[in-house]
């Protein structure tokens, strides 16, 4: 009954030759089904759901006796059915998981029936931005599922979606989400224009888009926040930010964003505000320590022994006496070792990765000190700064911190503390002029916006954070009316 592919032209004003090229792929199925009337079926077996094909398409098409496509269309239990004769459109849709059905008597027309297969993994626990408290859902690789996760949290007519198809080969589905009447239209337009201007063949992940549409591509600082948490995404939408999502990518991009936001874990909003503020401060201190601790060690030990406290000299001198290298070499060796460990740990499968910790901890830690290759104190400092860079809730900024330590280290060894200061000034100058979708990156520190400090270095109570961040220039700056303060004092026993 089934004829294998190869049955080509039945010579009328036929659209079948247009599909000739598809037949060169081994997974393209094309056959004629004899019947009354006979019909042709074309599809990619790798793209469609065979269940739908057999249960909802073939059963009805083979039973049908009609010779008109429009009648056949009504008989099918599937909603998305299109009658068309545009070869290009047909090709495109076949690649999107549609089945193309033609009746024997009318080869210039055909029906496109949707039967796509969703290869979707389950919604799982967030791994990069894990939190103990709060929702445990994270985005997956499917655009529809991700949209569902967002829409179900924001069932509001203001939530708008613009869709793009980017990449001449990948034809990736990219969505732009925003709240109409709330998000600054300028921000939406900026993203819209930048997305439309992308001219590329292949997009693999949303990080490609982040790289393509960032304000400054030379900067090591990420200018769009990359998250896998639907709750964070919805909070950003409600705040007046723009969200970009892409099919086949389990992350979404949020923008405009500021540097401080990269150090706020979303769990901060689920725990008590005083605790959250404390943890945020600890995280900021850890990051600063992680950047400057080793450079300061090198600078002080090489040039500024006068600043060392008297009580510390004995410890420093004795731990360094057996080390044959100058402090800079010692520091670079250790820093590179830690980076090596981290890279090795990231490349290896999880089960083998565990041994890396042991190798790193015992071999590098203890043995290097005993062999007199590094000093104990530097080992502590380097380990602490590595630890500090792990505290960042957003993975991308952690990588940036890993990197900017090195120029500081080299300047510190060349010019002492002066060099460290010069390097820090360079970094700050760069950060101050940096923008995210045209909005200042260092906000609220520069430009100084006092109101936005309510959710920056510390997080105040939800009640007090009743305005949207100033730098987003939203159409509705007030989130909710300020609750009336109840000044009446009550006794606990009343």
């Amino acid at each position, binding site marked *: 009954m089934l004829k294998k592919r190869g049955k080509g032209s039945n010579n009328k004003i036929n659209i079948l030759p247009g599909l000739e090229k598809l037949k060169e792929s081994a997974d393209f199925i094309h056959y004629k089904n004899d019947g009354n009337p006979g019909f042709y079926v074309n599809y990619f077996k790798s793209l469609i759901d065979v269940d739908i094909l057999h249960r909802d398409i073939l059963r009805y098409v083979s039973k049908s006796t009609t010779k008109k496509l429009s009648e056949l269309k009504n008989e099918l239990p599937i909603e998305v059915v299109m009658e068309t004769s545009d070869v290009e459109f047909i090709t495109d849709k076949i690649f999107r998981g549609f089945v193309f059905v033609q009746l024997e008597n009318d080869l210039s027309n055909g029906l496109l029936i949707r039967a796509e297969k969703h290869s979707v993994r389950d919604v799982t626990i967030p791994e990069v931005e894990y939190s103990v408290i709060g929702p445990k859902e994270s985005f997956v690789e499917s655009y529809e599922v991700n949209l569902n996760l967002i829409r179900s949290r924001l069932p509001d007519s203001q939530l708008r979606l613009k869709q793009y198809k980017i990449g001449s080969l990948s034809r990736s589905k990219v969505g732009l989400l925003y709240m109409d009447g709330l998000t600054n239209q300028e921000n939406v337009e900026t993203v819209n224009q930048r997305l439309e201007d992308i001219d590329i063949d292949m997009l693999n992940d949303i990080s490609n888009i982040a790289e393509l549409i960032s304000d400054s591509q030379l900067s090591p600082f990420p200018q769009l926040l990359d998250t896998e948490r639907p709750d964070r995404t919805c909070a950003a939408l409600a705040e007046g930010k723009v969200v970009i999502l892409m099919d086949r990518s389990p992350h979404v991009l949020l923008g405009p964003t500021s540097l401080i936001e990269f150090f706020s874990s979303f769990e901060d909003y689920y725990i008590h505000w005083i605790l959250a503020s404390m943890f945020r401060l600890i995280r900021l201190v850890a990051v600063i320590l992680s950047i400057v601790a080793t450079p300061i060690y090198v600078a002080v030990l090489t040039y500024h022994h006068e600043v060392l406290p008297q009580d510390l000299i*004995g410890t420093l001198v*004795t731990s360094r006496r057996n080390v044959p290298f100058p402090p800079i070499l010692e520091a670079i060796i250790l820093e590179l070792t830690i980076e090596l460990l981290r890279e090795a740990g990231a490349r290896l499968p999880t089960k083998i990765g565990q041994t890396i910790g042991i190798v790193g901890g015992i071999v590098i830690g203890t043995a290097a000190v005993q062999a007199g290759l590094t000093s104990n104190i530097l080992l502590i400092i380097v380990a602490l700064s590595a630890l500090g860079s792990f505290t960042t809730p957003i993975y991308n900024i952690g990588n940036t911190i890993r990197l900017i330590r090195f120029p500081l280290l080299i300047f510190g060894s060349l010019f002492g503390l002066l060099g460290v200061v010069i390097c820090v000034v360079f970094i700050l100058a760069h950060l101050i002029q940096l923008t995210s979708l045209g909005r200042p990156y260092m906000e609220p520190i520069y430009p100084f916006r006092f109101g936005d400090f309510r959710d920056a270095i510390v997080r105040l109570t939800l009640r007090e954070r009743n305005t949207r961040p100033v730098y987003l220039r939203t159409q509705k700056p007030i989130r909710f009316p300020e609750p009336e303060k109840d000044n009446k004092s009550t006794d606990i026993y009343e």
Partner: protein
Amino acid sequence: MKRLAILSISTLLFLTSCFLQEEIVDDISMVTVIGFDKGEGEKILATINVPFHQSNIEVINKTYQTEAVFTKDATDIGTSKSDTPMVIAQNEVLIFSKELAEENLMDYLDSYQRDPSISTRLFVAVAEDKSAPLIARNNSINQDIGVLIGKMFRNNIERNFLPQTNLHLFLYDYYQPGRDPFLPIISKDEEQYQVKGISFFKGATYKGEIEFGYETMVFRQLRESFSHGAYTFETKDQEWASIQNVSSKKSVDVVLPPGEKPTIKINVKMNGFLREYSGEKIEEKTIKEISKQMEDSIKEKSTELLGMFEEWGVDPLGLGNEIRKNKRGWKEKEWEPIYEKVNVDVNINVTIKETGVTS
């Protein structure tokens, strides 16, 4: 524009006259104490102590002796005897022999006050006699003697009767018009350092000294407010009383009647705690008596001290400066000698707040 920016930044970086000498902590000899004595002719004899850290607690003190014209030369010459270059940035204590102090200390301290790497918390002291024996031959002390002496001074300032002193305060007193500096006197008694007394200077020249103990307590009370420190004395009824100083507050009032001799009132309010008493019982009356006696004895001592200062022509209490604070157009020359131009009125008020549990 960009090229100009890069050029100017690199100029700033590479053409600075700031000269960074690489001095890695374990490749330098960090001098912690230097003692200066009179050497041959114009030269000074410097005794330099360099600690060698064996472990973070065990230290061997190495001593070098050099003769040089200037203070900084001494360490430079010392470098030629040592395996690593000598640096003085971690210097804790400077000791001058009495012989040098009698000349002019500023000749030697000048290079120290101008060196930015020197901490002005550096202690400057005068040796009882010569400074070399204080530093040399310290083989039995397995601690950095610089740290040791520095801590000893700090301890005496915090818990005893040594008034606040360091290089900064010395210079402050030296440059402030109507004030004269003082320095502690250090001595060594069988491997143990101690503060022997306080020496007084006119300008930077040694004039006289008082002994550590009761005299320095009274001096400190007249000079500054402080807490801590204990003193034991004999009462009129042949009993002994030990009073711990809880707080001693000093304030100064200046009365300037027109056409008359101005009066400087130094008020000292001391709160004490009667720790021990050899008598049978402590009653309200005894406490009053003890505090009265203490007041009298402090007052007596302070008159004695002021007499000594007048004799030496020094003003470590800054009496001239007190007048300067209150009088326009003050000139140092017009108010010298200060003790003849003003009346000094010392008011002591001792309160015993506590006697502890009595049975």
